[in-house]
């Protein structure tokens, strides 16, 4: 279409979303992030430039926590990428098999954890993993692996991974559903052509389906990235704002929350909170930009 005329319809299509989003999301967030450049001293807000960031990155009081949270966050993200997404994709691949019976039933059942609120998830898993009430120990006992049991949530070495796996359990439904939707849109004909060509089962997945759903895999990865670096609720629900034991489950979200809103006797510190939010924002933005500019623009899309 030639751009000789002003294309009003583009404006019309974009306007409602941009308006609502800018007013209710961007404006408040920007307004808050601005605080990162200020410090509150005796009820007065003074402009301090990038001082807060210096504090965050170089003052050991803050930087230790920050790097700890960042490192934990990376691990948290890795577990999701390596466990959640492959399982989600695999489930979607199986579920999208056209002749599969009870597919809708399986799909709904597997999606149920995703629907649950964090309160329930936290309660259920604490109950199950608790050394006291015996569910996990007796189940391990049943398969003769009782010796493997440990109070995972209470041990520095395991707590984060355990929580990450609980989170995986809860959110597997997300990649599953998205990939499922993507797989459904692959034209049956192409798969038929593949079958005639002898490309069936696993190799059909690798050679035909996967390349065609690559953009969706990209979305899933970036959503996982963004979601994990913003994650907060599950850890908060299970381990509290101090993300115990000994901050071993502290991720950027809990660190931010604790700092921004305060916790117990610790008062909220909007300035440092915003500073952390700013740092998180920068990290996520870099990730998203890499995706948008380096990967998405290069990704071949196929019209189906």
């Amino acid at each position, binding site marked *: 279409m030639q751009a000789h005329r002003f294309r009003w319809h583009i404006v019309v299509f974009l306007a409602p979303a941009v308006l609502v989003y800018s007013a209710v999301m961007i404006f408040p967030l920007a307004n808050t992030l601005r605080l990162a450049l200020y410090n509150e001293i005796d*009820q007065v807000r003074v402009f301090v430039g990038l001082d807060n960031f210096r504090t965050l990155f170089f003052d050991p*009081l*803050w930087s230790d926590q920050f790097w700890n949270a960042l490192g934990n966050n990376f691990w948290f993200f890795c577990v999701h990428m390596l466990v959640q997404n492959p399982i989600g994709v695999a489930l979607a691949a199986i579920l999208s098999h056209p002749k599969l019976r009870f597919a809708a039933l399986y799909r709904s059942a597997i999606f149920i954890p995703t629907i649950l609120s964090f309160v329930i998830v936290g309660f259920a898993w*604490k109950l199950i*993993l*608790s*050394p*006291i*009430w015996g569910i996990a120990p007796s189940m391990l006992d049943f398969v003769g692996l009782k010796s493997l049991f*440990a*109070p*995972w*949530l*209470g*041990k*520095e070495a395991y707590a984060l991974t355990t929580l990450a796996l609980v989170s995986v359990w809860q959110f597997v439904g997300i990649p599953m559903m998205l990939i499922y939707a993507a797989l459904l849109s692959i034209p049956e004909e192409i798969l038929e052509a593949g079958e005639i060509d002898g490309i069936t089962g696993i190799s059909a997945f690798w050679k035909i389906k996967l390349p065609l759903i690559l953009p969706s895999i990209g979305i899933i990865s970036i959503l996982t990235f963004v979601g994990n670096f913003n994650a907060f609720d599950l850890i*908060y629900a299970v*381990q*509290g*704002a*101090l993300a*115990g*034991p*000994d*901050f071993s489950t502290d991720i950027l979200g809990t660190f931010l929350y604790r700092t921004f*809103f*305060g*916790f*117990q*006797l*610790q*008062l*909220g*510190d909007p300035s*440092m909170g915003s500073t952390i939010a700013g740092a998180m924002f920068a990290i996520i933005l870099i990730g998203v930009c890499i995706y948008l500019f380096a990967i998405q623009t290069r990704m071949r899309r196929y019209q189906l």
Partner: protein
Amino acid sequence: ADVTLTIESWRNDDLKLWQEKIIPAFEASHDGIKIKFSPTAPAEYNAILNSKLDAGSAGDIITCRPFDASLALYDAGHLTDLSDMEAMSNFTDVAKSAWQTDDGSASFCVPMASVIHGFIYNKDAFKEVGVKVPTTEEEFFAVLEAFKADGNYIPMAMGTNDQWEAATMGYQNIGPTYWKGEEGRLALIKGDQKLTDPQWVAPYATLAKWAAYLGDGFEAQTYPDSQNLFTLGRAAIYPAGSWEISGFNTQADFEMGAFKPPVLKAGDTCYISDHTDIGIGMNAKTANPEAAKTFLSWVASPEFASIFGNALPGFFPLSKTPVEMADPLAKEFISWRSECEPTIRSTYQILSRGTPNLENDTWGASAAAIKGTSTPEELGKKLQEGLASWYAPQK
């Protein structure tokens, strides 16, 4: 028309009490004022309240956390100075101290209740194993040992998963005995004592000894787990706060007793943590200041104290007029006030104003002490360093 006052509170637990007892009592005697008790999930309370106050949508009456959280609200102009309210004279200075400016010139919340630490125990279990209530630390560990040997009960119900349990029911419970209550607490504030001093480190060493008597996997045991372990009769001793009384009363079907933190040597003075915990103040921007003050005056009255104290055994009213308690456990707890030196939690006043936050650090330290991941000395050193980093008197 009627004015309606909305109360902001974190006390979800008390919703029924307010709806069924307190509000009817108040409304019966005060025409034209309606009360709405609107609690927020406790964990979110501070954050939500602050946001609402900043944006101007908070309720008229505000339930006050003790010390700095409320002080910050006052400083920010969100709470009204209530010093000249007549009914404030119903409270001792100590009671008011939790909601005053550092120089004591302004009081901004009406004190409502305090909580006392101690140990609740399963009387049946004690009978079964044939042990007596301990008064000294030695006896205390002997009792624990006896239960451990018996094997039918987990000697003590406590977990470190939630961290605050270890600090509040552990460290702050037995600690005052070591640092001699107010004496040590004030000295710490002045900078005369340090957290590396033996009286501040020793409690960690004692806590470390507890580990052997906690249930399997106490590292992942949460606070509700501990409560349930005890009320289900699986544990013999529960390091407690008095707030547990009403809950435990309805849940445990065995007889419970309480004992105060054991002293080091027989005959020593005992110290208890009698911690001012709940106050109630007025939103400076309320549209109905008169009604709000009327309500607060009523809260400061003995009438309220008696309703509240009896409805919520374990939350002890701070009013000068003593309240007659009906509940035996509550009676036991409050009786310690006359036997022992009371103090408040060491970290609450002034010392948790900066970053790192001493209270939060104490949580981690207490949990670490019990789990044995650090030695008491290391913990003391770390806490001291943290405090000294921002608190001038400790530098």
